């Protein structure tokens, strides 16, 4: 399952926790209900957490300094709650680690994901990588502030997306 970063395929150094098994030693993404178990590992063991779309990200506040990754998910591309979660992580909780989008987002949502603070996208549709890249490059102007703090373009609300 390729992992996209900045429109390109990148290596995934994370593994998912397997249900019913002990957590492995390296970089692992745990479901929210195993967060305490993950936090109990050595402090230098990279830890990520996967949350469902109905989670208020404020519940991660105490754990965030230990987290290097938060995975948000799109059960369908129509369910846009993960956009708000990603933005709240960046904006309200000042999270600077990796935000990974999982589930079934569409390539056409890529720019929205990035502008809400998502850094990587895990997609099971490898054939779409070129489409994701194109979706990233096709629009160069936006009309509202985002967590990326793009450069304002003179008049009004406009800004360039820096590519």
């Amino acid at each position, binding site marked *: 399952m390729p992992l996209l970063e900045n429109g390109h395929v990148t290596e995934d150094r994370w593994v998912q926790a397997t249900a019913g098994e002990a957590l492995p030693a390296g970089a692992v993404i745990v479901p929210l209900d195993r967060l305490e178990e993950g936090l109990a590992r050595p402090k230098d063991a990279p830890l990520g957490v996967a949350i469902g779309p109905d989670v*208020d990200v404020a519940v991660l506040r105490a754990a965030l300094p230990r987290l290097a990754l938060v995975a948000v998910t799109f059960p369908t*591309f*129509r*369910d*846009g*709650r993960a*956009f*708000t*979660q990603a*933005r709240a992580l960046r*904006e*309200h909780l000042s999270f600077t680690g990796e935000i990974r989008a999982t589930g079934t987002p*569409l390539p*056409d*949502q890529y*720019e*929205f*994901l*990035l*502008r*809400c603070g998502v850094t990587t996208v895990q997609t099971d549709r490898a054939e779409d990588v070129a*489409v994701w890249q*194109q*979706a990233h490059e*096709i*629009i*160069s*102007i*936006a*009309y*509202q*502030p*985002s967590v990326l*703090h793009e450069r304002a*373009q*003179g*008049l*009004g*609300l*406009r800004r360039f997306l820096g590519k």
Partner: protein
Amino acid sequence: MSTDTAPLPVGRYAYDEVDRTFLSQRVAQFREQVGRRVAGDLTEDEFKPLRLMNGLYLQLHAYMLRVAVPYGMMGSDQMRELAHIARTYDRDYGHFTTRQNIQFNWIRLEDTPDILERLAGVNMHAIQTSGNCIRNVTCDEFAGAAADELLDPRIHAEILRQWSTLHPEFSFLPRKFKIAISGSPHDRVAARFHDIGLVAHPGPDGRAVFDVFVGGGLGRTPIIGVHLRDNLPEEDLLAYLEAVVRVYNAYGRRDNMYKARIKILVQALGVEQFREKVDAEFAQMNRADYRLDPAIVEGIRARFGIPDLDAPADAAQTLEADRRADARLDRWVRTNTHAHRHEGFISAVVSIKPDGGIPGDVTADQMDLIAALADDFSFGEIRVTHMQNVVLGHVRKDRLRDLWLRLDGAGLGTPNIGLVGDIIACPGLDYCALANARSIPIAQKLSARFANPELQENIGTLRINISGCINACGHHHAGHIGILGVDKRGEEFFQLTLGGSAENDVAIGQIIGPALPEDETVDAIARLIDTYLVLRNEGEAFIDTYRRLGAASFKDAVYAPA
């Protein structure tokens, strides 16, 4: 960039190269998406939200393309392009909608990228006229002209248009989201029947402040919007709307599309708890990031053309004399004009509701004529109203007769604004995949039956709204008389509601009794009106008499024909 030195278009925002670049990128993106769909790389399920974000619906017989007319304002050049599209890609006509847009009903999927490219050529688009996103922001059709206006709401409508365009967080909301903005104490935008209604007025320092209503709407569950806060400062407008929509995106229902609008969330939480959530979100936002600086507002205001309102000193007297000389003109001025802030000017409403016609339908030739009249009489500026008519906002009073003569000669001089003939009807079963009944034939029969202008004026203000199903696109709940099409064992029936209003006296109409067969509906409404004429006190409109006497006095008229 020579085009950027052209005169600014009156009444709307002038695009520059940056805006045009954005539009052309957007067209290229949609062309690529259509290509993937045609090639089979996108399923219809995946393509659907993409086409909807570009205003393209799949209707009963064909694709329908809904073109955005931001806050109802367009120029004569844009209207001519719409006429060209109607001739080239549709069947020679278009349809003005209740959200101030125009839609084309017979579009081929393969043609849509070309149509969008042509629209982009006149700085138009179909972005977010559909889909679960923030839709076209609607506005007072007399904005910037009305004598009773406190503040021109179009500048802030444009700011909201820009802010909501491809918004990264709010393009996949639980359901569609509609914002209306008014700058007049007289509500002409149905502010309390919108997801967010904004009423703008000048604050103590002269900059705009906003009273905010939330959670209003019609549809299957008609609800009057609740008051969320007063005097929202202009600089916090975007931050506060971000907070409201963010709460909705996080908590709005997604399990049932009929329970997914923000009105359901507001009702479920109660206004106090909803307000607490919005305030909590607002309090923790970095407001500097979202601050709407006065320099931004003034930068956008500077892109609006201003009409040069220069009229002869005797313009008003000339119109008075013209009216005395021609009773038909006099009647049209009484019914189809609105007071302008400048004493030498007046706003004229072109009725798109001819006797026996289809409300809101406009032919390509009529579009061209409206464009020509806008050039000749109103600075090239055209407004589409939420009543599905057209306004020429700034007409010199001494030239109003000339305008009327040309309208009248072309069959566009119907004197029925605000009267029985000014019916709002959804497209109904003639076009729509959701409808249970045909709305248009009922509208046509009513309009023909009450065609006599003297009779209409005698009856007075009366708003009739017709919806072909419970989704209520004809806003029947907001009509003084509402008509709802229902299906009874395969036959079309119509249910009447009375007493609704979308204006300052906002109310939801109440069902008067069992639905009527199609062939009895128009007669029943005629009896309702006859009853009102008998029962009314001096100066009472239908809605006043209904409110004074209640439903009982009218029920017999509907169900017990003499």
